[in-house]
């Protein structure tokens, strides 16, 4: 009998507090993620991006509203930001209010360095993650001169150091669930600007996110002009491949611990292959992420592919040493294998993961040059490199 009562008490407590806990969670969501109702502020104009599906911008009398769309639930909004320049304006209750132009920013996504550089706002970065993996020379110099603080692992950034920096906002990639770091920052009153450009499925759509970040620096027009040039350059290169009669076949990705991740047919890479005049096995596939395959499937589906992009090895020798099965691929036999290591630092920085987002035309040129060199006789590779 002695031990019976505590158990009853226990079960009651679990029940009561579990319910309480769930309610709390719900309230938090309601406070941060809601579908915004029509409000009394009059809308002046709305900017719907030409390619990107993940955001749009609304101009009101006294403020600008940026809405980040939720890629995991159609029609839902992931985040709302009300950007103002004048402290006296009345702002809507929904959304995160941020005074612009931003004077300081922590950036937890390497892809935005180039956007910020092109907008001449790179000097506003006061903190970033994984300093040793950064390629951008200006950021590296900033880290060395201690103008920029390295906040550690991007998935587990140093909370205390970030708070001590007191940034005006934090720019980070959004995922389907909120992480501990973002939650902490929001609680501390530091706005978190979520970007979802990685969910876009074409190179131009990704590049168009420069318009999103530009609003936070009050540089919309400048971003429009930069993007228009990017678009023109990209489309003019794409034009070069339209008359190709025989499209060469291509394979992508690499083997990681027995699983070979290849791009889905609706992915950014598949779009790039299509625009470069290449024939990709999964071109009609609907998936936008990666597809995990075993080596047997890869050999069956891609054994005869003539070109291989995104290989992890540096040389054919390394490839053969890693696994002799690699030698069975037609692309390896023809020595048509490329990695993304043309611009790297000894400590692991790779510009492919940084500036390529802002230069989709160069990514396209790389592929065209590798497969149809006669179309770009004077071009030299930017991001990709043929295996030694």
């Amino acid at each position: 009998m002695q031990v019976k009562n505590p158990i009853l008490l226990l079960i009651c407590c679990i029940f009561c507090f579990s319910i309480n806990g769930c309610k709390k969670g719900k309230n938090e969501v309601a406070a941060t993620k809601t579908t915004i109702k029509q409000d009394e502020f009059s809308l002046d104009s709305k900017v719907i991006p030409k390619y990107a599906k993940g955001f749009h911008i609304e101009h009101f009398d006294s403020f600008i509203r940026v809405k980040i769309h939720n890629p995991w639930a159609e029609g839902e909004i992931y985040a709302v930001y009300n950007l103002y320049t004048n402290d006296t304006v009345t702002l809507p209750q929904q959304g995160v209010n941020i005074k612009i132009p931003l004077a300081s920013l922590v950036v937890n996504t390497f892809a935005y360095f180039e956007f910020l550089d092109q907008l001449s706002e790179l000097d506003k970065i006061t903190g970033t993650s994984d300093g040793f993996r950064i390629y951008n020379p200006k950021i590296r110099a900033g880290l060395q001169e201690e103008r920029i603080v390295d906040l550690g692992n991007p998935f587990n950034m140093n909370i205390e150091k970030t708070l001590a920096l007191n940034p005006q906002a934090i720019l980070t990639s959004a995922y389907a669930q909120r992480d501990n770091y973002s939650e902490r920052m929001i609680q501390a009153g530091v706005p978190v600007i979520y970007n979802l450009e990685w969910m876009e499925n074409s190179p131009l759509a990704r590049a168009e996110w420069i318009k999103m970040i530009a609003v936070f620096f009050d540089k919309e027009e400048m971003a429009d002009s930069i993007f228009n040039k990017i678009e023109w350059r990209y489309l003019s290169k794409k034009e070069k491949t339209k008359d190709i009669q025989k499209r060469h076949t291509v394979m992508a990705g690499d083997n990681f611990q027995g699983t070979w991740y290849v791009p889905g047919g609706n992915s950014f890479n598949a779009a790039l292959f299509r625009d470069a005049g290449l024939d990709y096995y999964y071109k009609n596939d609907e998936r936008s992420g990666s597809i995990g395959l075993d080596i047997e499937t890869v050999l069956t589906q891609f054994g005869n592919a003539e070109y291989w992009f995104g290989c992890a090895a540096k040389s054919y020798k390394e490839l053969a040493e890693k696994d002799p099965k690699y030698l069975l691929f037609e692309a390896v036999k023809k020595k048509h294998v490329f990695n993304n290591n043309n611009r790297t630092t000894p400590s692991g920085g790779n510009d492919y993961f940084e500036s390529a987002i802002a230069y989709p035309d160069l990514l396209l040129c790389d592929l065209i040059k590798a497969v149809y060199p006669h179309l770009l006789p004077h071009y030299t590779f930017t991001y990709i490199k043929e295996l030694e």
Partner: protein
Amino acid sequence: MKHKTRLFALLMVILVIVFIADIFTGNAPISIKDGWNALFGTSGNAIIDEIVFNYRLPKAITAILAGAALSVAGLLMQTLFRNPLAGPDVLGVSAGAGLGVALLTTLGGSALYSAVSWLGSMAQVVAAIAGAIPVLLLILGVSSRIKDSVTILVLGMIFGYVANALITILQSFADPDSLKVFVMWTFGSLSAVTWNKMPLLAILVITGIIAVFFLQKPLNSLLLGEQYAASIGLNIKQTRRIIITITALITGTVTAFTGPIAFVGVVIPHFARALFGTVNHKTVIPATLILGSILMVTCDIVSQIPISNQTLPINAVTAVFGAPMIIWIVVKRKKL
């Protein structure tokens, strides 16, 4: 008796010292005066207030709760199974919690999205609890049918292996970003518990710990073997059920909030028994609670040592502390 009281008093003093040290140390340079002001009012600087009061303080309290809870859960398992290497995770409950979180992180962007967005920041906690409960029910179901505790131990470990196997399968299908989110959870983090989550963690853990104090006599009887305990009138099946429920509750809750934290639960009960020179649970239970808290808070301080600008995963720190002790136990008891 006097010696024991003195030892308890000393341990309490150490706990208070490490607790204060934990609050006053960290990556951000904050003076003791500012830290003190932030703790009991305001330092005049909102950033310092935020770091000390909303970051360091809940983290230190979580360390105390998690250390005490996991250690006492380990003690319960070691006594029930009469196995010195048993820990809170042997029932497979931690693995079940891990499976819940793995499901959430890998399917959170698709199949489970509406549930994830409804639960917000509580999603991981709820997923972990939802993963731990089926394992607990399985173990309870088995324990009511099986006489031998060792069989329950073996089955608990098998449930754990199955849950871990399912996690591996989910991981093999997951995209790299979801995978990273899950891997970070497995590193363990004391800072994930914010003030709004603290009441739930504290109440569940403290309730479990209070319940353990009512188990002193049955636990002492179990030390002499189940047959002897039964001969002096102990209802073995019922006691076993209660011990398993409390262990699962404590372990599941802590794992849900902080991620899986290894070693503390295995090592601390041995420490407590060795330090006080007794196996009597009247002494060992409070000793385990205090020592567990001291170790976890100390590990939190160690994890703040700046190495390449990031905090060390708490799971790694506890393991680095715990491993030498496990080796000591194994060497000391050659029969293992």
